């Protein structure tokens, strides 16, 4: 019943979306408030209808309705209810509905918050959003129908790929979808600004929280994907530069560039066309990412289904959006003149610009690496492969420049830094970085990139610490508060700035986690029960892993689960047991490696069973036939990637927290140097005197 209702709701949503889209644009053009209001109600209605459709899909999963193609292919009776609910985004057909659900939810929120403000922009914002919603709903109805019937009712479904039955994996795609869809809101505001010609800073100031939350969702989505790959794929790494991984990284890179470059427009009235370009490019990248993930056009181990129809549809959408945006930007070029000129390479503008160029350079490299095989094949006929060596070689140096800029950008002066400014802000951090370099070198860290990462990381962290210290000290002195309270008030006063610093700390920690890769240790050995293998950690201690026994169990939906039990000792001290498994899953028939991970704050001990060499030893439980091959790795600093991710989340949430806290003027108008984020030259603590203008941050 409910699935049928869901299908019905989806069909109604399409005419409502198309009608609302027409109403919104006409209402805007004719200044007809009644039409505009009607169009906004269409958006709310679509959210309701798509929610009913989503509930229908989930119900079909939970009730094991295998007469539906989608449920049959992505579920089975034995699947946990949790994964059945996640069936909504397990496959393409459901995820398009899920996409429309998120988009209609975010559109409704944006429209609700702006029901009394930005009324000049809202008809066009809503029109753009409804056009996007129409597109996704139409795909869902005509190309990827989630409610398609098989024509008969199978007794059971085909089951979900066991590698996807992992809680990280359940959260990873929805996080990315949330990031992708919430970026539609800033894009819609940008388009509305172009259409109306109201091209002051308002369009990005009112969508700042949308941009930031979209960025946060993307960040979390990418990190969850890394975490999943690390636990589930069993090769000891977290990033393979696979096209699907790259697809999720591209919008993140451009969105990061956008988040930084809008600050230049806000403070200096420069780069208006550039920012417009970045917001459009980020949106295009979200569509491109979907195209890459879903089309299977690019050779990837992960995207298998060569669904060319959907590839062409997304490519077409990409082309249409790019064409319309370009025409709008060219038409409005006269309204986007820069108010100031670029003055010096040694300035905050230059540092931010450099940050943008590097981020776009990385995005370009990634796109190029993904597309190059396709281009070569089209042009010369011979297929080539571009793999991790290429991406690492090009992106690591650029990443290191980015790391350095993370320290320079926030404290260097606007316009033109004086030698005095440079000395005041950078002398001490450079000394600290030098000391760190000497100490690490003395301790034996000789890998150039790793060493540079730690040294630059120390440089950035020192600068951020000094900023916090100066700010707190100034506030404690002026307001006569105790330092702890002063720190809290300081952050609350300009959460965007201080939250941003905390995000930077998280990114530095993540970078250091990446650098640990240079010191990975791997030992492979074939063992009999009772024998041991030794792994030497790069931190100097030695793990001794003793293979105790092999045992077999038969949980649901498996032929067998073979578990190897180890005891771990570190330099003679007993650390307790560690297990690693191989599961032989029945539906779908597949082998799964369950990695044994023992985490400490600085490293992971990572153990996997390659294979056991005699089935008799397993079945009859005979220790003399239980020889098996194991791989033990020590992955230094990998846990820092996850810790860094948490710090990034905390920093972003500080910036996102509702209420006042962004020192921005309510209506457009960019700020002058005197009330910039940090005056850079002179005591940075003086940013405490930001006029703050008291305007509550307009939530989208």
């Amino acid at each position, binding site marked *: 019943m409910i699935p049928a209702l869901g299908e019905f709701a989806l069909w109604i949503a399409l005419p409502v979306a198309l009608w609302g889209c027409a109403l919104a644009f006409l209402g805007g053009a004719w200044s007809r408030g009644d039409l505009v209001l009607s169009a906004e109600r269409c958006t709310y209605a679509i959210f309701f209808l798509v929610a009913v459709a989503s509930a229908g899909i989930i119900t079909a999963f939970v009730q094991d309705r295998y007469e539906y193609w989608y449920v049959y*292919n992505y579920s089975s009776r034995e699947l946990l209810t949790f994964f059945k609910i996640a069936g909504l985004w397990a496959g393409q057909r459901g995820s398009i509905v899920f996409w429309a659900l998120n988009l209609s939810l975010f559109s409704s929120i944006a429209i609700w918050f702006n029901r009394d403000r930005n009324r000049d922009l809202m008809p066009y914002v809503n029109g753009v959003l409804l056009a996007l919603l129409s597109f996704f709903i139409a795909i869902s109805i005509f190309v990827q129908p989630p409610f398609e019937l098989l024509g008969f009712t199978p007794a059971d479904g085909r089951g979900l*790929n066991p590698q*996807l039955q992992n809680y990280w994996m359940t959260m990873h795609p929805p996080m990315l979808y949330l990031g992708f869809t919430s970026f539609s809101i800033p894009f819609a505001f940008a388009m509305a600004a172009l259409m109306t010609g109201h091209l002051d800073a308002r369009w990005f100031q009112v969508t700042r929280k949308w941009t930031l939350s979209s960025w946060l969702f993307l960040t979390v989505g990418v990190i969850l994907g890394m975490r999943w790959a690390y636990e589930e*794929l069993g*090769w000891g790494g977290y990033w393979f530069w696979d096209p699907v991984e790259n697809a999720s990284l591209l919008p993140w890179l451009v969105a990061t560039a956008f988040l930084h470059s809008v600050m230049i427009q806000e403070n200096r009235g420069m780069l208006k066309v550039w920012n417009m370009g970045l917001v459009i490019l980020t949106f295009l990248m979200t569509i491109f990412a979907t195209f890459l993930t879903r089309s299977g056009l690019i050779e990837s181990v992960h995207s298998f289904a060569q669904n060319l129809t959907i590839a062409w549809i997304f490519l077409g959408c990409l082309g249409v959006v790019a064409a319309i945006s370009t025409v709008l930007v060219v038409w409005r070029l006269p309204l986007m003149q820069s108010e100031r*000129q670029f003055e010096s390479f040694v300035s905050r503008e230059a540092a931010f610009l450099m940050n943008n160029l590097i981020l776009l350079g990385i995005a370009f490299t990634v796109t190029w690496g993904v597309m190059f095989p396709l281009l070569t094949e089209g042009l010369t006929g011979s297929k080539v*492969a571009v793999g991790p060596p290429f991406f690492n070689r*090009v992106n690591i140096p650029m990443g290191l420049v980015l790391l350095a800029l993370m320290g320079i950008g926030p404290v260097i002066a606007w316009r033109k830094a004086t030698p005095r400014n440079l000395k005041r802000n950078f002398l001490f951090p450079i000394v600290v970085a030098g000391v760190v370099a000497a100490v690490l070198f003395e301790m034996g860290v000789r890998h150039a990139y790793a060493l540079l990462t730690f040294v630059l990381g120390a440089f950035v962290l020192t600068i951020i610490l000094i900023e916090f210290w100066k700010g707190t000290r100034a506030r404690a002195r002026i307001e006569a508060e105790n330092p702890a309270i002063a720190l809290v008030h300081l952050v609350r006063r300009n959460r965007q700035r201080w939250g941003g610093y905390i995000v930077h700390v998280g990114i530095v920690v993540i970078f250091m986690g990446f650098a640990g890769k240079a010191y990975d240790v791997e030992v492979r050995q074939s063992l009999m029960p009772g024998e041991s293998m030794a792994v030497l950690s790069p931190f100097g201690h030695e793990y001794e892993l003793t293979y105790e026994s092999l045992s077999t169990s038969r949980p649901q939906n498996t032929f067998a689960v073979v578990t190897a039990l180890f005891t771990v000792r570190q330099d003679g001290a007993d650390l307790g047991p560690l297990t690693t498994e191989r599961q032989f899953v029945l539906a779908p028939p597949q*082998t799964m490696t369950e990695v044994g991970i023992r985490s400490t704050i600085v490293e992971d001990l990572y153990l996997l069973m390659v294979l056991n060499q005699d089935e008799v030893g397993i079945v009859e439980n005979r220790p003399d036939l239980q020889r098996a091959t194991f791989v033990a790795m020590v992955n230094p600093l990998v846990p820092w990637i996850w810790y860094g991710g948490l710090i990034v989340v905390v920093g972003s949430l500080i910036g996102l927290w509702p209420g006042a806290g962004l020192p921005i003027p309510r209506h457009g108008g960019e700020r002058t140097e005197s009330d910039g984020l940090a005056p850079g030259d002179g005591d940075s603590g003086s940013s405490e005197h930001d006029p703050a203008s008291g305007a509550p941050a307009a939530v989208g």
Partner: protein
Amino acid sequence: MRNDRRFFVGLIGVAGVVGYLIWTGISDTMLYFVTPSELLTRIAENPQSVAQAWRVSGKLVPSSYSYSKTELLHRFVVEDPADPSTRVDVEFRSPLPDTFTDSPDMEVEVVMEGTLRSDHVFEATEVLTKCGSRYEAMPKSESVALSGGRIE
């Protein structure tokens, strides 16, 4: 005006460095992606390229897989999907991916990186299998399901 020009010089400079990195990066790390037949013909045409690394994609020959306990070595045979008579023996030392299964009723497509030894055994440094994906559950069988065919 003068500053704007300086700004553009800076822009072009950065773009140039990035471009140079990409160019050298591609030419130094690029691998040819070939089928087993193409691999053999290319090496026959140009014997010097034997030392070069390749990426080869082919179909696993059913029941060809074996594991040497003493050498910790995986051995299997890959055939050209278009021309099943062309086969390449493969040796591989690292753990095989979970999706690698040698069962007669499953088609497993293998993508490998490595070099062809002079004894015409392909020494793989990396093996990936294509069946199932992160996001799609076994799409291969879609056609079977839709045609109302075999249901387990």
